[in-house]
């Protein structure tokens, strides 16, 4: 096997093992309901994490996505509440704004040579601040179009539902994989992650690629915001605080190096599922206090990382001796 796929394989293996362990303890966890929930409940996180994967692959980071998701939700809610605009048009408008927002951050990062961490941190303050300014209340969205979108699901045998947003996440992952591995833009992203100076000498259009990466992340955060507003039928400026850290964790658990240049979009999906599994497991257990929940999440995160390291090390050694 090509050693590039090692982290990915390790992650998939860990997920399957963990799932098996969970089922052994709570047989209910095998139900299609749980699987359907895993997709639906993590749809918005997954979509945003695809964008984060690209950003991290290029050696950057985007801390603004949680705030952008909240902003999108509030924006949609305010727009649908106070105007007669059709939700689809509102979606388009929201996506244009968030994409432009991402592109602007990318442009600042490139042209002013500022570290992404800080630019996107300021972006996070700005987006969350804009959401507050739009409305500090949580605003319900009662548009009939939302209702009809939500009634659009496929019932799996066993009562689980494959919802529109769950399906959308899978589609976004597929498209993400395609972009990462089958387009010139994708190759340029990896090139950037391998080293900006070298990539520049090799003729990669650094500026354009950087702007496009953050624009893509902004677009997907906007899409994630739309999904979140469908998920909750509301817009709320305090929603999705800290989602960027969940996304980063999912990306890294999925085997992508934070230093950039190495990793897979598909791995991020597994990372998302692993996190969802941890959550589900904790709820099924149902005996943990607030603090033990936090401690356990931390420990499980640690265990996954350690296991991944061990698996990679092990097969690396085996290869060397073979």
């Amino acid at each position: 096997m090509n050693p590039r796929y090692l982290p990915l394989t390790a992650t998939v293996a860990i997920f399957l093992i963990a799932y098996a362990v969970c089922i052994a303890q709570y047989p209910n966890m095998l139900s299609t309901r749980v699987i359907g929930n895993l997709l639906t409940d993590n749809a918005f996180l997954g979509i945003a994490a695809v964008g984060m994967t690209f950003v991290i692959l290029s050696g950057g980071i985007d801390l603004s996505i949680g705030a952008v998701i909240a902003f999108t939700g509030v924006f949609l809610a305010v727009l649908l509440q106070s105007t007669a605009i059709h939700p689809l048009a509102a979606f388009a408008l929201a996506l244009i704004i968030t994409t432009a927002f991402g592109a602007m951050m990318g442009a600042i990062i490139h042209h002013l040579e500022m570290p992404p961490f800080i630019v996107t941190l300021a972006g996070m303050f700005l987006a969350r601040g804009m959401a507050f300014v739009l409305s500090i209340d949580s605003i319900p969205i009662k548009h009939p179009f939302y209702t009809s979108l939500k009634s659009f699901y496929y019932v799996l045998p066993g009562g689980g539902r494959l919802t529109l947003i769950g399906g959308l996440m899978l589609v976004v992952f597929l498209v993400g994989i395609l972009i990462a591995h089958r387009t010139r833009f994708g190759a340029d992203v990896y090139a950037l992650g391998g080293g900006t100076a070298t990539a520049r000498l090799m003729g990669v259009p650094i500026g354009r690629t950087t702007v496009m990466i953050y624009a893509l992340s902004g677009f997907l955060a906007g899409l994630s915001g739309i999904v979140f507003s469908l998920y909750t039928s509301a817009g709320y400026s305090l929603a999705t605080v800290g989602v960027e850290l969940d996304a980063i964790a999912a990306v890294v658990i999925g085997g992508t190096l934070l230093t950039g240049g190495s990793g897979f979009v598909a791995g991020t999906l597994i990372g998302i599922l692993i996190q969802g599994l941890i959550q589900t497991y904790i709820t099924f257990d149902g005996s943990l206090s607030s603090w033990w929940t936090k401690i356990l999440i931390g420990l499980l995160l640690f265990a996954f990382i350690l296991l991944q390291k061990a698996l990679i090390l092990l097969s690396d050694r085996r290869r060397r001796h073979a």
Partner: protein
Amino acid sequence: MTGTLKAYAVRLFPQVAALAIILFMVSLAFPGFFKLSFQNDRLYGSLIDILNRGAPVALLAIGMTVVIATKGIDLSVGAVMAICGAVAAASITAGHSLAFTLLVTISTGILCGLWNGVLVAVLDIQPIIATLVLMVAGRGIAQLITEGAILTFNHPGLIFIGSGSLFGLPMPVIIWLGFGLIVALLVRRTALGMLIEAVGVNRRASRLSGVSTGVLLIAAYMLSGLCAALAGIIAAADIRGADANNAGLWLELDAILAVVVGGTSLLGGRFSIAASLLGAMIIQSINTGILLSGFPPEFNLIIKAAIIVLILVIQSPRAQSAFIWMSRARAAEPKKEQEAK
């Protein structure tokens, strides 16, 4: 000697200038800003508030600077603050002496740093993720100690650390100034500073040159843990209680911001503790300025974002070279005129 002094002045100029501009802007919004008086044995006024309220971020920034110089990052400092505050409160309410309490608390902080350091240096886990583990679990541990409540105490000695005063300055100010000075001297008067920078720039080459990279990395995270412990003690002593739920919440971002505003690159290497401390004061000035200005809280984040972007734009290499270019052009202009004649 004057040469190094001059180098210092050049290095710190952008931060000092940014701080001055912000203070000036705040004083426009709130005229009584620079007023100082002597009250309750200490100086009293908004400027002192900035120094005092900025203490936790300043302390965190000291450790964070060193960690960032090694090309790392420490997301766990907020959680470690919470743990240490909780430990201090628990120990003092259990009737232990102040000395013992401080010792245990500081050891706890260092231990947390050791954990992070081992994860990064020995297990070779990426710093962001390694410290994310403690960031998530740490607050849980702190809540475990306080059982989710605010653990209040009224030991006068411990309270003194948070709200007492010495030499006319609040204790937290004395602590961060003193500790900052100690660390700055420690890294600059010994070879530590250079070795840390070497590790941050090229860990492999440093190892091959005989630098104990592992030990240095672990030490950096331990220092960060120690700083978080001090910040945690101050935060708890300030409100006379350990608030495990909120102590240090999101403060890691402020600390990182302070370091970056201080001009240390997130890619490791060259660092300056003094500049980071200035960065911390810049951030606190923004916060205090917002509170004094009387804007509705919905605007807090936008104002903060705008000011930070402005500072960073001014500090960015591009803007600086443009500035140099402009001043060069201006210097060249008279010459041209002469040539024309």
